[in-house]
Protein backbone atom coordinates (compact mmCIF):
# COMPACT_ATOMS: atom_id res chain seq x y z
CA UNK A 1 0.00 0.00 0.00
CA UNK A 2 1.44 3.36 -1.04
CA UNK A 3 1.25 6.01 1.63
CA UNK A 4 -0.35 9.28 0.68
CA UNK A 5 2.01 12.20 1.19
CA UNK A 6 3.05 15.31 -0.68
CA UNK A 7 6.13 13.63 -2.17
CA UNK A 8 4.18 10.66 -3.57
CA UNK A 9 1.51 12.94 -5.01
CA UNK A 10 4.23 15.05 -6.63
CA UNK A 11 6.14 12.09 -8.08
CA UNK A 12 3.01 10.42 -9.40
CA UNK A 13 1.90 13.70 -10.90
CA UNK A 14 5.06 13.64 -13.01
CA UNK A 15 4.84 9.94 -13.91
CA UNK A 16 1.27 9.67 -15.14
CA UNK A 17 -0.20 8.44 -11.79
CA UNK A 18 1.26 4.97 -12.47
CA UNK A 19 2.80 4.44 -9.04
CA UNK A 20 -0.36 3.81 -7.01
CA UNK A 21 -1.32 0.34 -5.88
CA UNK A 22 -4.74 -1.12 -5.04
CA UNK A 23 -6.15 0.39 -1.87
CA UNK A 24 -7.20 -2.98 -0.48
CA UNK A 25 -7.03 -6.61 -1.63
CA UNK A 26 -9.93 -8.75 -2.81
CA UNK A 27 -9.08 -12.00 -0.99
CA UNK A 28 -10.80 -15.38 -1.12
CA UNK A 29 -12.36 -16.24 2.24
CA UNK A 30 -10.30 -18.58 4.43
CA UNK A 31 -11.86 -21.46 6.38
CA UNK A 32 -11.19 -19.99 9.77
CA UNK A 33 -10.66 -16.62 11.45
CA UNK A 34 -10.15 -15.42 15.00
CA UNK A 35 -12.85 -12.79 14.53
CA UNK A 36 -15.48 -12.46 11.81
CA UNK A 37 -17.39 -9.19 11.56
CA UNK A 38 -20.61 -9.31 9.54
CA UNK A 39 -21.18 -6.07 7.66
CA UNK A 40 -18.53 -3.98 5.86
CA UNK A 41 -20.19 -0.67 6.55
CA UNK A 42 -18.49 2.09 8.49
CA UNK A 43 -19.00 0.37 11.84
CA UNK A 44 -17.79 -3.04 10.72
CA UNK A 45 -14.75 -1.65 8.94
CA UNK A 46 -13.87 0.63 11.85
CA UNK A 47 -14.18 -2.34 14.21
CA UNK A 48 -11.81 -4.41 12.10
CA UNK A 49 -9.38 -1.49 11.90
CA UNK A 50 -9.24 -0.94 15.67
CA UNK A 51 -9.11 -4.70 16.35
CA UNK A 52 -6.00 -4.93 14.22
CA UNK A 53 -4.39 -1.59 15.06
CA UNK A 54 -5.15 -1.25 18.75
CA UNK A 55 -5.60 -4.82 19.95
CA UNK A 56 -3.26 -6.71 17.62
CA UNK A 57 -6.03 -9.07 16.45
CA UNK A 58 -5.28 -9.43 12.75
CA UNK A 59 -6.82 -12.78 11.76
CA UNK A 60 -10.04 -10.94 11.05
CA UNK A 61 -12.55 -11.07 8.20
CA UNK A 62 -15.24 -8.53 7.41
CA UNK A 63 -18.09 -10.06 5.39
CA UNK A 64 -20.25 -7.89 3.16
CA UNK A 65 -23.28 -9.06 1.20
CA UNK A 66 -22.95 -6.31 -1.40
CA UNK A 67 -20.05 -3.96 -1.90
CA UNK A 68 -18.08 -2.16 0.73
CA UNK A 69 -19.86 0.92 2.05
CA UNK A 70 -22.89 0.34 -0.20
CA UNK A 71 -25.52 0.37 2.53
CA UNK A 72 -26.11 3.17 4.98
CA UNK A 73 -22.47 4.27 4.67
CA UNK A 74 -23.49 5.69 1.31
CA UNK A 75 -27.00 6.72 2.31
CA UNK A 76 -26.62 9.37 4.98
CA UNK A 77 -26.31 13.14 5.29
CA UNK A 78 -22.74 12.97 6.66
CA UNK A 79 -23.40 15.06 9.78
CA UNK A 80 -20.95 14.71 12.68
CA UNK A 81 -21.79 16.20 16.09
CA UNK A 82 -21.70 15.30 19.76
CA UNK A 83 -24.58 17.32 21.21
CA UNK A 84 -25.95 14.36 23.15
CA UNK A 85 -27.12 14.71 26.71
CA UNK A 86 -27.84 11.39 28.41
CA UNK A 87 -25.16 9.70 30.55
CA UNK A 88 -23.37 7.15 28.38
CA UNK A 89 -24.30 8.83 25.12
CA UNK A 90 -22.55 12.05 26.21
CA UNK A 91 -19.14 10.42 26.71
CA UNK A 92 -19.56 8.08 23.75
CA UNK A 93 -20.33 10.75 21.15
CA UNK A 94 -17.71 13.13 22.54
CA UNK A 95 -15.12 10.38 22.15
CA UNK A 96 -16.36 9.83 18.60
CA UNK A 97 -15.96 13.53 17.77
CA UNK A 98 -12.41 13.44 19.17
CA UNK A 99 -11.63 10.46 16.94
CA UNK A 100 -13.10 12.34 13.95
CA UNK A 101 -10.82 15.29 14.65
CA UNK A 102 -7.74 13.16 14.03
CA UNK A 103 -9.20 10.62 11.61
CA UNK A 104 -7.55 11.81 8.38
CA UNK A 105 -4.11 11.61 10.04
CA UNK A 106 -4.92 8.32 11.77
CA UNK A 107 -5.93 6.68 8.48
CA UNK A 108 -3.54 8.56 6.18
CA UNK A 109 -6.65 9.18 4.13
CA UNK A 110 -8.44 12.47 3.68
CA UNK A 111 -11.95 12.00 5.07
CA UNK A 112 -12.61 15.70 4.45
CA UNK A 113 -13.84 16.30 7.98
CA UNK A 114 -15.02 19.88 8.00
CA UNK A 115 -15.78 21.41 11.42
CA UNK A 116 -18.16 24.01 10.08
CA UNK A 117 -20.54 24.19 13.09
CA UNK A 118 -23.91 22.59 13.69
CA UNK A 119 -26.65 25.16 14.19
CA UNK A 120 -29.97 24.06 15.70
CA UNK A 121 -32.60 26.75 15.23
CA UNK A 122 -34.74 27.64 18.26
CA UNK A 123 -38.28 28.96 18.04
CA UNK A 124 -39.61 29.40 21.58
CA UNK A 125 -38.35 30.43 25.03
CA UNK A 126 -38.91 26.85 26.21
CA UNK A 127 -36.70 25.56 23.41
CA UNK A 128 -34.00 28.07 24.41
CA UNK A 129 -34.19 26.84 28.02
CA UNK A 130 -33.99 23.20 26.92
CA UNK A 131 -31.00 23.96 24.70
CA UNK A 132 -29.29 25.90 27.53
CA UNK A 133 -29.57 22.85 29.77
CA UNK A 134 -28.22 20.51 27.11
CA UNK A 135 -25.42 22.78 25.89
CA UNK A 136 -24.36 23.72 29.45
CA UNK A 137 -24.10 20.01 30.20
CA UNK A 138 -21.91 19.63 27.13
CA UNK A 139 -19.61 22.43 28.32
CA UNK A 140 -19.40 20.93 31.81
CA UNK A 141 -18.37 17.56 30.40
CA UNK A 142 -15.51 18.80 28.28
CA UNK A 143 -17.28 19.51 25.01
CA UNK A 144 -18.17 22.77 23.31
CA UNK A 145 -21.60 24.30 22.90
CA UNK A 146 -22.99 27.79 22.85
CA UNK A 147 -26.22 29.68 22.37
CA UNK A 148 -26.53 32.33 19.69
CA UNK A 149 -28.87 35.26 19.98
CA UNK A 150 -30.99 36.20 17.00
CA UNK A 151 -28.54 39.00 16.10
CA UNK A 152 -25.57 36.66 16.17
CA UNK A 153 -27.45 34.11 14.08
CA UNK A 154 -28.36 36.77 11.50
CA UNK A 155 -24.72 37.86 11.27
CA UNK A 156 -23.60 34.27 10.61
CA UNK A 157 -26.43 33.04 8.38
CA UNK A 158 -28.16 36.08 6.90
CA UNK A 159 -30.39 34.26 4.43
CA UNK A 160 -32.62 32.16 6.67
CA UNK A 161 -36.27 33.09 6.80
CA UNK A 162 -36.41 35.64 9.65
CA UNK A 163 -39.74 37.03 8.53
CA UNK A 164 -42.16 37.93 11.35
CA UNK A 165 -44.89 36.07 9.50
CA UNK A 166 -43.02 32.76 9.45
CA UNK A 167 -45.10 29.96 10.92
CA UNK A 168 -42.35 29.38 13.50
CA UNK A 169 -40.29 32.60 13.84
CA UNK A 170 -36.64 31.95 14.68
CA UNK A 171 -35.50 33.47 18.01
CA UNK A 172 -31.99 32.04 18.36
CA UNK A 173 -29.85 28.95 17.90
CA UNK A 174 -27.87 26.32 19.79
CA UNK A 175 -24.47 25.80 18.21
CA UNK A 176 -21.69 23.28 18.39
CA UNK A 177 -18.74 24.73 16.50
CA UNK A 178 -16.63 21.54 16.47
CA UNK A 179 -19.40 19.66 14.69
CA UNK A 180 -19.58 19.46 10.92
CA UNK A 181 -19.58 17.07 7.99
CA UNK A 182 -17.25 14.49 6.44
CA UNK A 183 -16.95 12.65 3.15
CA UNK A 184 -18.83 9.40 3.77
CA UNK A 185 -17.19 7.26 1.06
CA UNK A 186 -13.73 8.37 2.14
CA UNK A 187 -14.44 7.16 5.68
CA UNK A 188 -15.39 3.70 4.41
CA UNK A 189 -12.44 3.57 2.03
CA UNK A 190 -10.01 4.90 4.64
CA UNK A 191 -11.01 2.34 7.26
CA UNK A 192 -11.02 -0.44 4.63
CA UNK A 193 -7.54 0.51 3.45
CA UNK A 194 -6.26 0.81 7.01
CA UNK A 195 -7.73 -2.53 8.11
CA UNK A 196 -6.50 -4.29 4.97
CA UNK A 197 -3.04 -2.86 5.55
CA UNK A 198 -3.01 -4.63 8.92
CA UNK A 199 -3.94 -7.96 7.31
CA UNK A 200 -7.73 -7.92 7.68
CA UNK A 201 -9.60 -9.75 4.88
CA UNK A 202 -12.50 -7.71 3.51
CA UNK A 203 -14.75 -10.13 1.65
CA UNK A 204 -17.39 -8.57 -0.55
CA UNK A 205 -20.36 -10.24 -2.26
CA UNK A 206 -20.49 -12.66 0.64
CA UNK A 207 -23.94 -12.82 2.23
CA UNK A 208 -24.46 -14.66 5.49
CA UNK A 209 -27.23 -17.22 5.06
CA UNK A 210 -26.98 -19.09 8.34
CA UNK A 211 -25.42 -19.04 11.77
CA UNK A 212 -24.11 -22.34 13.13
CA UNK A 213 -24.38 -22.88 16.86
CA UNK A 214 -23.20 -25.46 19.32
CA UNK A 215 -24.88 -24.89 22.65
CA UNK A 216 -24.09 -21.41 23.85
CA UNK A 217 -21.43 -20.78 21.20
CA UNK A 218 -21.37 -19.66 17.59
CA UNK A 219 -19.08 -21.97 15.65
CA UNK A 220 -19.32 -20.45 12.21
CA UNK A 221 -21.29 -18.75 9.50
CA UNK A 222 -22.85 -20.19 6.37
CA UNK A 223 -22.30 -17.75 3.53
CA UNK A 224 -22.82 -17.54 -0.22
CA UNK A 225 -19.05 -18.11 -0.48
CA UNK A 226 -18.89 -21.17 1.74
CA UNK A 227 -18.67 -21.96 5.44
CA UNK A 228 -16.46 -19.71 7.55
CA UNK A 229 -15.60 -20.76 11.09
CA UNK A 230 -14.70 -18.21 13.74
CA UNK A 231 -13.62 -18.00 17.36
CA UNK A 232 -15.62 -14.81 17.79
CA UNK A 233 -18.36 -13.26 15.68
CA UNK A 234 -19.56 -9.67 15.65
CA UNK A 235 -22.75 -8.41 13.98
CA UNK A 236 -22.64 -4.87 12.59
CA UNK A 237 -25.49 -4.90 10.08
CA UNK A 238 -27.79 -2.06 11.12
CA UNK A 239 -31.07 -2.32 9.25
CA UNK A 240 -30.95 -6.09 9.04
CA UNK A 241 -29.95 -6.91 12.61
CA UNK A 242 -33.21 -8.69 13.45
CA UNK A 243 -32.85 -11.05 10.49
CA UNK A 244 -29.34 -12.07 11.43
CA UNK A 245 -30.35 -12.37 15.08
CA UNK A 246 -33.13 -14.76 14.12
CA UNK A 247 -30.73 -16.80 11.95
CA UNK A 248 -28.86 -17.41 15.21
CA UNK A 249 -32.18 -18.50 16.72
CA UNK A 250 -32.06 -15.78 19.37
CA UNK A 251 -35.64 -14.48 19.16
CA UNK A 252 -36.71 -10.85 19.18
CA UNK A 253 -34.77 -7.61 19.62
CA UNK A 254 -35.80 -4.15 20.85
CA UNK A 255 -35.42 -2.94 17.26
CA UNK A 256 -37.66 -2.13 14.29
CA UNK A 257 -36.40 -1.48 10.77
CA UNK A 258 -37.50 1.83 9.29
CA UNK A 259 -36.35 3.79 6.29
CA UNK A 260 -35.02 7.29 6.08
CA UNK A 261 -34.67 9.38 2.96
CA UNK A 262 -32.07 11.98 2.09
CA UNK A 263 -31.70 14.36 -0.81
CA UNK A 264 -29.11 16.31 -2.76
CA UNK A 265 -29.77 19.26 -5.03
CA UNK A 266 -27.96 20.39 -8.15
CA UNK A 267 -24.60 22.05 -7.30
CA UNK A 268 -24.77 25.70 -6.27
CA UNK A 269 -22.15 28.34 -5.54
CA UNK A 270 -21.25 28.57 -1.83
CA UNK A 271 -24.48 29.27 0.02
CA UNK A 272 -24.38 27.69 3.46
CA UNK A 273 -21.29 27.44 5.65
CA UNK A 274 -22.86 25.45 8.49
CA UNK A 275 -25.08 22.45 9.14
CA UNK A 276 -28.51 23.93 9.89
CA UNK A 277 -31.21 22.00 11.72
CA UNK A 278 -34.87 22.97 11.93
CA UNK A 279 -37.10 20.99 14.27
CA UNK A 280 -40.34 22.32 15.68
CA UNK A 281 -44.03 21.55 15.62
CA UNK A 282 -43.70 18.24 13.82
CA UNK A 283 -41.19 19.51 11.26
CA UNK A 284 -37.73 17.98 11.13
CA UNK A 285 -35.14 19.13 8.66
CA UNK A 286 -31.36 19.33 8.40
CA UNK A 287 -29.23 20.76 5.61
CA UNK A 288 -25.64 21.40 4.68
CA UNK A 289 -23.73 22.08 1.48
CA UNK A 290 -21.28 19.54 0.13
CA UNK A 291 -17.90 20.51 -1.24
CA UNK A 292 -19.26 19.89 -4.74
CA UNK A 293 -21.94 22.50 -4.03
CA UNK A 294 -24.97 20.22 -3.70
CA UNK A 295 -27.37 21.01 -0.89
CA UNK A 296 -27.55 17.79 1.16
CA UNK A 297 -30.65 17.50 3.30
CA UNK A 298 -33.14 15.22 4.95
CA UNK A 299 -36.10 15.04 7.27
CA UNK A 300 -38.23 12.47 9.02
CA UNK A 301 -38.54 8.73 8.66
CA UNK A 302 -41.17 7.45 6.25
CA UNK A 303 -43.31 6.70 9.33
CA UNK A 304 -44.04 3.05 8.64
CA UNK A 305 -41.84 0.01 9.10
CA UNK A 306 -40.02 -1.02 5.95
CA UNK A 307 -37.00 -2.90 4.65
CA UNK A 308 -37.32 -1.32 1.18
CA UNK A 309 -34.40 0.92 0.31
CA UNK A 310 -36.67 3.36 -1.48
CA UNK A 311 -38.61 6.32 -0.19
CA UNK A 312 -42.18 7.56 -0.50
CA UNK A 313 -43.44 10.81 -1.98
CA UNK A 314 -45.27 12.38 1.00
CA UNK A 315 -41.90 12.74 2.77
CA UNK A 316 -40.37 14.32 -0.35
CA UNK A 317 -43.12 16.93 -0.10
CA UNK A 318 -42.67 17.38 3.68
CA UNK A 319 -38.94 17.89 3.33
CA UNK A 320 -39.33 20.30 0.42
CA UNK A 321 -41.83 22.33 2.46
CA UNK A 322 -39.43 22.47 5.43
CA UNK A 323 -36.58 23.50 3.11
CA UNK A 324 -38.45 26.41 1.59
CA UNK A 325 -39.84 27.52 4.94
CA UNK A 326 -36.40 28.15 6.45
CA UNK A 327 -34.38 28.79 3.28
CA UNK A 328 -36.86 30.36 0.83
CA UNK A 329 -33.96 30.99 -1.58
CA UNK A 330 -34.01 27.25 -2.37
CA UNK A 331 -37.45 27.52 -3.95
CA UNK A 332 -36.28 27.11 -7.53
CA UNK A 333 -33.37 24.78 -6.88
CA UNK A 334 -33.75 21.42 -8.60
CA UNK A 335 -33.39 18.10 -6.86
CA UNK A 336 -30.59 15.96 -8.26
CA UNK A 337 -31.05 12.68 -6.41
CA UNK A 338 -32.78 11.20 -3.45
CA UNK A 339 -32.21 7.90 -1.75
CA UNK A 340 -33.34 5.88 1.22
CA UNK A 341 -31.58 3.67 3.73
CA UNK A 342 -33.00 1.18 6.21
CA UNK A 343 -32.02 1.55 9.82
CA UNK A 344 -32.35 -0.07 13.18
CA UNK A 345 -34.74 2.11 15.16
CA UNK A 346 -34.40 1.04 18.77
CA UNK A 347 -36.93 1.27 21.57
CA UNK A 348 -35.25 4.22 23.29
CA UNK A 349 -33.39 5.80 20.38
CA UNK A 350 -29.99 4.62 21.63
CA UNK A 351 -27.64 1.97 20.34
CA UNK A 352 -26.39 -1.44 21.46
CA UNK A 353 -22.72 -2.44 21.71
CA UNK A 354 -22.88 -5.49 23.90
CA UNK A 355 -22.43 -9.15 24.61
CA UNK A 356 -25.27 -11.48 23.69
CA UNK A 357 -26.81 -14.68 25.06
CA UNK A 358 -24.11 -16.57 23.12
CA UNK A 359 -20.63 -16.46 24.70
CA UNK A 360 -18.65 -15.58 21.58
CA UNK A 361 -21.23 -13.48 19.70
CA UNK A 362 -21.14 -9.69 20.00
CA UNK A 363 -23.72 -7.17 18.85
CA UNK A 364 -23.36 -3.70 17.37
CA UNK A 365 -26.80 -2.38 16.40
CA UNK A 366 -29.63 0.08 16.93
CA UNK A 367 -28.05 3.23 15.50
CA UNK A 368 -31.34 4.94 14.67
CA UNK A 369 -30.65 8.18 12.76
CA UNK A 370 -27.19 8.64 14.15
CA UNK A 371 -24.91 5.93 12.84
CA UNK A 372 -22.61 8.03 10.66
CA UNK A 373 -21.21 10.30 13.35
CA UNK A 374 -20.86 7.33 15.67
CA UNK A 375 -18.74 5.18 13.33
CA UNK A 376 -15.26 5.82 14.78
CA UNK A 377 -16.31 5.35 18.41
CA UNK A 378 -18.61 2.48 17.47
CA UNK A 379 -15.66 0.63 15.95
CA UNK A 380 -13.40 1.63 18.83
CA UNK A 381 -15.72 0.35 21.59
CA UNK A 382 -16.88 -2.72 19.63
CA UNK A 383 -13.27 -3.77 19.01
CA UNK A 384 -12.54 -3.16 22.71
CA UNK A 385 -15.52 -5.35 23.66
CA UNK A 386 -14.58 -8.18 21.29
CA UNK A 387 -10.87 -8.17 22.19
CA UNK A 388 -11.34 -7.95 25.97
CA UNK A 389 -14.67 -9.77 26.26
CA UNK A 390 -16.05 -7.11 28.63
CA UNK A 391 -17.85 -3.83 27.97
CA UNK A 392 -15.96 -0.61 28.52
CA UNK A 393 -17.62 1.42 31.34
CA UNK A 394 -18.70 4.06 28.81
CA UNK A 395 -20.97 1.56 27.03
CA UNK A 396 -21.88 -0.51 30.09
CA UNK A 397 -25.56 0.43 29.78
CA UNK A 398 -25.75 0.10 26.01
CA UNK A 399 -26.78 -3.53 26.28
CA UNK A 400 -29.96 -5.46 25.52
CA UNK A 401 -30.90 -5.86 29.19
CA UNK A 402 -31.12 -2.17 29.98
CA UNK A 403 -34.90 -2.12 29.54
CA UNK A 404 -35.29 -4.80 32.18
CA UNK A 405 -33.11 -2.77 34.53
CA UNK A 406 -35.23 0.31 33.92
CA UNK A 407 -32.38 2.22 32.27
CA UNK A 408 -33.88 3.90 29.23
CA UNK A 409 -31.39 6.08 27.31
CA UNK A 410 -34.02 8.17 25.57
CA UNK A 411 -32.65 11.53 24.34
CA UNK A 412 -36.02 12.65 23.02
CA UNK A 413 -38.20 11.29 25.79
CA UNK A 414 -40.37 9.71 23.11
CA UNK A 415 -41.07 6.37 24.81
CA UNK A 416 -40.87 2.81 23.48
CA UNK A 417 -42.01 3.54 19.91
CA UNK A 418 -39.14 3.16 17.44
CA UNK A 419 -40.54 5.43 14.74
CA UNK A 420 -40.54 8.42 17.12
CA UNK A 421 -36.79 8.38 17.80
CA UNK A 422 -35.82 10.47 14.79
Amino acid at each position, binding site marked *: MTRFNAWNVFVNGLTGQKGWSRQWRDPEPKDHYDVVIVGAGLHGLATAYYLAKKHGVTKVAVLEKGWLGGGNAGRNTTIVRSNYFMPGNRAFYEHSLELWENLSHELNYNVMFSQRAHVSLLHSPAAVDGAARRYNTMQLTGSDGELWSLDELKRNIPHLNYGPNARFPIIGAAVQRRAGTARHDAVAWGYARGADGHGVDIIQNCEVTGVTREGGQVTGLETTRGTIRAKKVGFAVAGNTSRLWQMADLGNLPIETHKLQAFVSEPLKPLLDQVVVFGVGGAHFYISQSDKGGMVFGGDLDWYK*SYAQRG*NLPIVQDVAEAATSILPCLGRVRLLRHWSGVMDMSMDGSHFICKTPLDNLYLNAGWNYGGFKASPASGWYFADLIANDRPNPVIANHDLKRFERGIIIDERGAGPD*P*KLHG
Partner: protein
Amino acid sequence: MIRIRCPFCGERDHSEFTYGGDGSIVYPALDAPMEDWVKAVFERENPRGRQLETWHHTSGCRAWLLVERDTMTHEIFSVRLAHEGAGRVIEEGT
Protein backbone atom coordinates in the same frame (compact mmCIF):
# COMPACT_ATOMS: atom_id res chain seq x y z
CA MET B 1 -47.65 5.88 -2.03
CA ILE B 2 -49.25 2.89 -0.37
CA ARG B 3 -53.01 2.57 -0.93
CA ILE B 4 -54.98 1.19 2.02
CA ARG B 5 -58.55 -0.02 1.58
CA CYS B 6 -60.34 1.29 4.69
CA PRO B 7 -63.49 -0.77 5.48
CA PHE B 8 -65.48 2.46 5.95
CA CYS B 9 -63.94 4.89 3.49
CA GLY B 10 -62.64 2.76 0.64
CA GLU B 11 -59.16 2.86 -0.87
CA ARG B 12 -57.14 5.89 0.26
CA ASP B 13 -53.52 7.15 0.19
CA HIS B 14 -51.44 6.09 3.16
CA SER B 15 -50.75 9.75 3.93
CA GLU B 16 -54.30 9.90 5.34
CA PHE B 17 -53.29 7.29 7.90
CA THR B 18 -50.89 7.13 10.84
CA TYR B 19 -48.81 4.01 11.24
CA GLY B 20 -49.26 2.48 14.69
CA GLY B 21 -46.90 -0.45 15.02
CA ASP B 22 -46.72 -4.21 15.35
CA GLY B 23 -50.30 -5.48 15.43
CA SER B 24 -49.43 -8.96 16.62
CA ILE B 25 -48.53 -7.95 20.17
CA VAL B 26 -50.72 -9.48 22.85
CA TYR B 27 -50.29 -7.64 26.13
CA PRO B 28 -49.99 -9.88 29.19
CA ALA B 29 -52.23 -9.75 32.25
CA LEU B 30 -51.59 -6.78 34.54
CA ASP B 31 -50.16 -9.07 37.21
CA ALA B 32 -48.00 -11.05 34.78
CA PRO B 33 -44.26 -11.32 35.56
CA MET B 34 -42.06 -8.38 34.62
CA GLU B 35 -40.26 -10.42 31.92
CA ASP B 36 -43.52 -10.83 30.01
CA TRP B 37 -44.12 -7.08 30.07
CA VAL B 38 -40.54 -6.33 28.96
CA LYS B 39 -41.09 -8.66 25.99
CA ALA B 40 -44.44 -7.11 25.04
CA VAL B 41 -43.36 -3.48 25.41
CA PHE B 42 -39.77 -3.59 24.15
CA GLU B 43 -39.16 -6.62 21.93
CA ARG B 44 -40.24 -7.01 18.31
CA GLU B 45 -40.05 -9.76 15.73
CA ASN B 46 -39.36 -7.13 13.04
CA PRO B 47 -39.93 -9.46 10.06
CA ARG B 48 -38.78 -8.72 6.52
CA GLY B 49 -41.89 -9.88 4.73
CA ARG B 50 -45.47 -10.30 5.85
CA GLN B 51 -46.43 -8.59 9.11
CA LEU B 52 -49.61 -7.65 10.93
CA GLU B 53 -49.62 -3.98 11.86
CA THR B 54 -51.95 -1.25 13.07
CA TRP B 55 -52.85 1.91 11.16
CA HIS B 56 -55.08 4.77 12.33
CA HIS B 57 -57.22 6.49 9.70
CA THR B 58 -56.38 9.86 11.24
CA SER B 59 -57.63 12.02 8.37
CA GLY B 60 -60.63 9.84 7.62
CA CYS B 61 -63.02 7.86 9.80
CA ARG B 62 -60.43 7.69 12.63
CA ALA B 63 -60.87 3.93 12.95
CA TRP B 64 -57.92 1.76 13.98
CA LEU B 65 -57.19 -0.90 11.39
CA LEU B 66 -55.26 -4.16 11.36
CA VAL B 67 -53.34 -4.38 8.10
CA GLU B 68 -51.40 -7.34 6.80
CA ARG B 69 -48.55 -5.93 4.71
CA ASP B 70 -45.22 -7.01 3.27
CA THR B 71 -42.45 -4.86 4.77
CA MET B 72 -40.21 -5.39 1.74
CA THR B 73 -42.61 -4.95 -1.20
CA HIS B 74 -45.31 -2.93 0.66
CA GLU B 75 -47.99 -5.19 -0.86
CA ILE B 76 -51.13 -5.26 1.28
CA PHE B 77 -52.87 -8.61 1.78
CA SER B 78 -55.75 -7.72 4.07
CA VAL B 79 -57.31 -4.85 6.00
CA ARG B 80 -59.82 -5.17 8.81
CA LEU B 81 -61.05 -3.14 11.75
CA ALA B 82 -58.96 -3.55 14.87
CA HIS B 83 -62.06 -3.52 17.06
CA GLU B 84 -63.32 -7.09 16.92
CA GLY B 85 -66.99 -6.33 17.61
CA ALA B 86 -67.20 -3.52 15.07
CA GLY B 87 -65.29 -5.63 12.58
CA ARG B 88 -67.82 -8.43 12.92
CA VAL B 89 -70.70 -6.02 12.32
CA ILE B 90 -69.02 -4.74 9.16
CA GLU B 91 -68.22 -8.20 7.83
CA GLU B 92 -71.30 -10.17 8.90
CA GLY B 93 -73.88 -7.47 9.41
CA THR B 94 -74.68 -8.43 13.01
